[in-house]
């Protein structure tokens, strides 16, 4: 310890970072560190509320645009209310498009050297990425709550039970959760502006090459198959079912098992990208 350098500087070898910390202590510190990182984002929102509001405005605008501008021009297969049909697709799309914010935040920290500072500190290697994910999920939950409110105001409603509706919301957030891990990985792995471009390039096919706006049966076979197997499609179909909103139906296995796949897809994405994120963060090859 350097008494003169910093008279009251806490010891670098204090108990907090002691070797003796068992598994429970390590988990406790990983959670505490993760929360500190999440808290940083919350402080950002408080300091720059305008940015948060602008981020929320985009999906609301999209929802209103699709709901009212194009609403009249579209017909729902088998009848039913257009907006009831549209909203689950819009909710799911928003879950996809918000991932750009994750990538931007991660690559900004990388470029600025903030990530390196965290990596040079004695923190749990998972804390930074977990904290990032928690902050983004918090924002997603707020966004989704506002969108649900807007949807209700615009004439959308759910026709199932409250439990089913809650399950639908859960599936939407689960999809976002998985995509946040993908976004963190892209942010860590791709340097510079390339990362944001990469994600925007991914967002569009993932968002539109799905059954959110068009029945996959009306697409050319290969395209329809791709759209059917798009994880977003499973979530859209499953939430339509759970909300009791009209849908396209569909004869394929993947369409018949949308509920199952709306859980399996995100879990598979997390299983792949969470370990990749932690490894990438720790080793940062290159």
């Amino acid at each position, binding site marked *: *310890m350097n008494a003169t*350098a910093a008279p009251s500087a806490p010891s*670098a070898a204090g108990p907090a970072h002691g*070797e003796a910390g068992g598994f429970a202590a390590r988990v406790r510190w990983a959670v505490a560190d993760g929360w500190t990182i999440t808290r940083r984002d919350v402080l950002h929102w408080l300091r720059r509320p305008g940015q948060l509001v602008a981020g929320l405005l985009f999906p609301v605008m999209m929802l209103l645009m699709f709901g009212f501008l194009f609403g009249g021009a579209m017909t729902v297969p088998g009848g039913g209310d257009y907006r009831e049909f549209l909203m689950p697709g819009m909710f799911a799309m928003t879950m996809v498009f918000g991932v750009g914010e994750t990538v931007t935040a991660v690559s900004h920290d990388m470029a*600025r050297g903030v990530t390196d500072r965290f990596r*040079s500190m004695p923190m749990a290697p998972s804390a930074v990425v977990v904290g990032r994910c928690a902050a983004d999920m918090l924002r997603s939950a707020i966004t989704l709550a506002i969108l649900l409110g807007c949807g209700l105001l615009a004439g959308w409603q759910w026709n199932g039970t409250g439990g089913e509706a809650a399950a639908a919301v859960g599936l939407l957030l689960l999809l976002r959760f998985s995509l946040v891990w993908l976004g963190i990985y892209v942010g860590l792995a791709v340097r510079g502006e390339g990362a944001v471009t990469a994600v925007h390039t991914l967002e569009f096919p993932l968002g539109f090459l799905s059954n959110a706006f068009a029945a996959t049966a009306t697409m050319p076979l290969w395209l329809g198959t791709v759209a059917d197997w798009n994880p977003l499609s499973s979530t859209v179909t499953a939430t339509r079912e759970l909300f009791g909103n009209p849908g396209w139906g569909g004869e394929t296995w993947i369409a018949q098992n949308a509920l199952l796949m709306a859980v399996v897809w995100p879990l598979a994405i997390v299983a792949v990208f969470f370990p990749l994120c932690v490894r990438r963060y720790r080793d940062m090859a290159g």
Partner: protein
Amino acid sequence: METTGGAVTARGLGKRYGRSWALRGFDLHVPVGSVCGLLGPNGAGKTTAVRVLTTLLRADEGTASVAGHDVAAHGDRVRRSIGLVGQNAAVDEVLSGRQNLEMFGRLHHLGSRRAAARADELLERFRLADTGRKPVGAYSGGMRRRLDLAASMILAPPVLFLDEPTTGLDPRSRDEVWGAVRELVAGGTTVLLTTQYLEEADRLADRISVVSSGRVVAEGTPGELKSRLGGDRLDLVVRDPAALAGAAGIVRRVVGAEPDTDVENRRVGVGVEDRVAALTEVVRALEEQRIGVEDVVLRRPTLDEVFLHLTEAEEETTR
């Protein structure tokens, strides 16, 4: 890995990017409590060396230890012993200085109250206490650097790494950063700093290691390195090309060293130790011989000359 009293020890470090080696055969020994300056031009491998030593990057070859811990095997222990100020100020630009320091304090597990108290102390010490709620994005370069330094010493680390701490700063901010570093050193912190400026290494470092093409090509105290180079340079340009040999002869006799002659530019140059004496004697002798001179300059060697000289010297000894 045993340390034999070194705060930082590197043996044969190598790091490859694709086909080219950013670091190759990099050796370094920094005694506890000293300040080591890694001096080298852009692209020499300074940042790569710092990144390996601070566990941010894995070396492809060689071993290194910091504060007695092997960087590859015990990265977590190394991270408990170091502070790092990277090449760009790694602080959150949206938050205020206080919020930044509080965050880093929490990440060092000080708890929210001690983190807040420590933040106040450091703000005071680095003369940032009156910045208030201002976001760091609105700070000047010097203020940002000082905050960066403060953030790297939340826990008074035994070993501090500074990667080009004053690059891009105006002279005033640079002096402020130098002052902060000197204070730390006075308190016994071991410092490894990288720089492109001979002057900076000279002012702050006990010993300088000159880095070129990924390895240390010369090592010594600032004085030792300067005398190896022969101090300042005396350059003169003669009016008549025919007088070049005569001028060179005078310079050789007065200075006692073999000058470089550049026929095309009619220039004679030599390293001098006693600046004023060399200049007056040479000018007087030229007048006596009636050799017309167009220009005489006494100047510090450029960094290029330092590197060229030291790299050449290194090549000669390895040959």
